């Protein structure tokens, strides 16, 4: 399909204060039509607050937010007809069944799907997610409650999907089903998705572009390739009598240490494949390759303790951390 670079979500200098706490501190976010946009950040960074403002559930203290060309707080009802959302924590009515809750939420969204299509889709999704809709709300586990929100978001058509840690509580099997469904609607219907998460791997599987939020402002953004460039993969293997000298000389290898009988080092994530032949020729045993975690990314690039200069980035914004980002890759 053709990607039209229209802006679906735009926030400019968005602030949200809760008393003295600055939940959002000048957030500039831009999401284009037809893209799956990953919204990454640690707990408490302001992801949920941003999504709530975009949905018109919370009101910005200052700054502007535009969603599908509308003002979310003032045009909430109009906006919600075109938006599907999934919260990260779903609570159900104790005496309504899961199926009833799905029907209620879908009818309220009023997405203009006829009755027969709706029933068919609901049935299909319930099977896909292995969900029993006839139990009462109080009887579901966390993961099953989450499925109610997933199904009622996917059962109707929408132009924009706002997903706030949508897979929390799901087992890996269901996570995979969810990822497939999101990819399907994105490709078939060309919808826009804003996916908030603190799990890097989840975002990596889906997102075209990402924005990284920390302490209420976007600190980095761009394509996934650019993000990979930022991260290091943790590699370790049993020391035995392997001569690690050859590794030391590779430019992709950083912080090589030997401790507790294991050799550990970090490799630039986009250059892991360049290290593997050497590991093979060394015949290493007990090889572990750990993909970069978001926490590691933050510690390495934005952490206050690991890299003291990062403190300054709050004053001079983009320019500093870009310079800083280049450092570990070239070290």
């Amino acid at each position, binding site marked *: 399909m053709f990607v039209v670079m229209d802006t679906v979500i735009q926030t400019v200098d968005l602030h949200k204060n809760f008393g003295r706490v600055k939940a959002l501190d000048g957030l500039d976010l831009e999401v284009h039509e037809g893209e799956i946009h990953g919204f990454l950040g640690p707990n408490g960074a302001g992801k949920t607050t941003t999504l709530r403002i975009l949905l018109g559930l919370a009101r910005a203290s200052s700054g502007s937010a535009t969603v599908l060309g509308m003002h979310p707080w003032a045009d*909430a*009802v109009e906006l*919600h007809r075109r938006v599907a959302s999934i919260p990260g924590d779903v*609570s159900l*009515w104790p005496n309504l069944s899961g199926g009833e809750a799905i029907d209620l*939420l879908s009818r*309220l969204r009023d997405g203009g799907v006829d009755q027969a299509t709706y029933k068919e889709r609901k049935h299909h999704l319930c099977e896909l997610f292995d969900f029993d809709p006839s139990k009462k709300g*109080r*009887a579901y586990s966390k993961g099953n409650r989450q499925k109610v929100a997933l199904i009622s978001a996917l059962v109707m058509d929408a132009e924009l999907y706002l997903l706030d840690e949508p897979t929390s509580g799901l087992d890996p099997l269901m996570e995979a089903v969810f990822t497939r469904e999101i990819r399907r609607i994105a490709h078939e219907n060309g919808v826009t998705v804003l996916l908030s998460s603190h799990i890097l791997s989840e975002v990596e599987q889906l997102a075209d572009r990402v924005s990284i939020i920390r302490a209420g402002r976007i600190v980095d953004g761009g394509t996934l390739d650019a993000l990979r460039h930022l991260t290091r993969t943790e590699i370790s293997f049993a020391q035995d009598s392997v001569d690690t000298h050859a590794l030391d000389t590779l430019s992709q290898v950083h912080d090589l240490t030997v401790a507790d009988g294991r050799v550990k080092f970090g490799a630039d994530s986009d250059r892991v494949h360049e290290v593997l032949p050497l590991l093979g020729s060394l015949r290493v045993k007990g090889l572990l390759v750990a993909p970069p975690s978001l926490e590691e990314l933050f510690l390495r690039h934005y952490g206050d303790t690991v890299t003291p200069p990062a403190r300054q980035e709050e004053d001079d914004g983009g320019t500093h951390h870009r310079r800083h980002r280049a450092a570990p890759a070239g070290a």
Partner: protein
Amino acid sequence: MGALWILYRQRLRRDRWQVTVWVLSIGMLALFAVAAIAKTFGDDATRAQVLQLATAAPAILLLRGLPRGPGLDSFTFFEIFAFLGVLAGLMNTFLAVRHTRAEEESGRGEMIAATAAGRWAPLGATVLHGAVVNILVSIATALGFMAGGLDPAGSLVAGFATGAVGFAFLGVGLLASEFFSTSRGANGISSALVMVGYLLRGFGDATGQVGPDGTTMTAAWPSWISPIGWGQQTFAYTGNRWWPLLLPLALGVACTAIVVAIMARRDVGASVFAGRSGRADARPWLRGSFSLALRLQQGAIIGWCIGGLATGLLTGSLGSAIQSSITSNPQITAVLRGMIEAQGTSMTQLLVAALFEVAGILAAACGLQAVLRLRQEEVAGTAEPVVAESVSRMRWLGSFIGLGAVSVVLVMAFTALGAWLSLVASGDTSSAVGDVWQTAVDQLPAALIYLALPAAVFVVWPRATIPAGWALLGIGVVLGIYGGMLGLDQKLRDLSPFTHTPVTTSTGTDWSGGFWMLSIAAVLTALALAAVRRREVGTA
């Protein structure tokens, strides 16, 4: 289908049993009241005598209403309307909080608001739901009175007065939901406001002007700041005035307007009084299931103790107000005072007995809440980590019952303190002043029953704990405290613990009923403690 209609139907679906029970109970109570009163107080002469006694000893009016003549219809309205108003009020505050604050607190409100329903449709649907329910209450009450054989026109006024009081408290419940971040807080404050409404009109009725024949009365100003008082001002059956009902309706609309103004500015899930942040470190005493129970219930206990203190303080101030209203009507009172004294009960003792009955209900409710907390803890999943530690289920249950007992004692202690202080301050020097402590102790056995009984239910039939707990208390109040005035059969009244509450008079106290209740409470508690060892802690 519009979002408003869908949400309205969802509210009907959720409440179908609850609202049916409330509406039918209120209607049945109206019918029942007429039948019982017709049986017990058969003719105008008897009823006139009762009214003259009441206007002479206005302490009685506190728990009843505003006398407007001895006819069966107006007498029934006098006896039962204030209580119907309380029921309608509580039904509405619970309904309002259930569909607004509780929804937002659980996060379900947020899911709804994220659909095309937006932020306003849920409020609209709740107001519509409440309004319709209040019309149903009005019709049920009117039909109840009519079926009892009362005048249809007056019954309509009485019925819609009940519904209008309910609508006022619907607004109060909605407004409380804007201010508090938890449904617990919103329910607590709005139920307390219903009780304030009841006591204000009680105060106004008891200090009003007695009419020439002693069977009618004009309420004093406090009745005019209570929605229940406004309902009484319709003078159903004797005056059939509709205009006072504009006041509760206006209050309901005004509260809703304020709610709209607040909601236009606040985030979904936020409240005017933001949830405060807590302590970073637990206090040293928080180290076991009893101290946990105390930590969880401390706010509620303080609230109920303030209620007890206020009820106690009312004794002295009401006492002196009544003294002056009696001296203003010497002929009747001279005769009637003799009657009361002849029964061995002084005016102050009568007042103390009446008010401490109310305080006894407060104490029972406070203790009951501690036991119901067990079930809330279990459902929320916070019970599990506690019993997973080195706390046995028996000890866990025992801690909450124990805390319930402590809170019962505290509420009565504050009531007695308030009564003692206000009586001393009002210059009362009779022996009744010292009797307040004894009267406070008299209320304990009945309240303890309301710890042991729900604890037993909690062990045997967990899911019924909360509805059964409040229902048992409600039934106990109706049978025990209103049973006499309704002329209920003694066997029925004997089912209520409050019927057996020892009464302290000048001639002493009969504690035989009290000892029986203490024994029953002890046995039930022991059984619950033994049985909980065989019961699992779960959420179902």
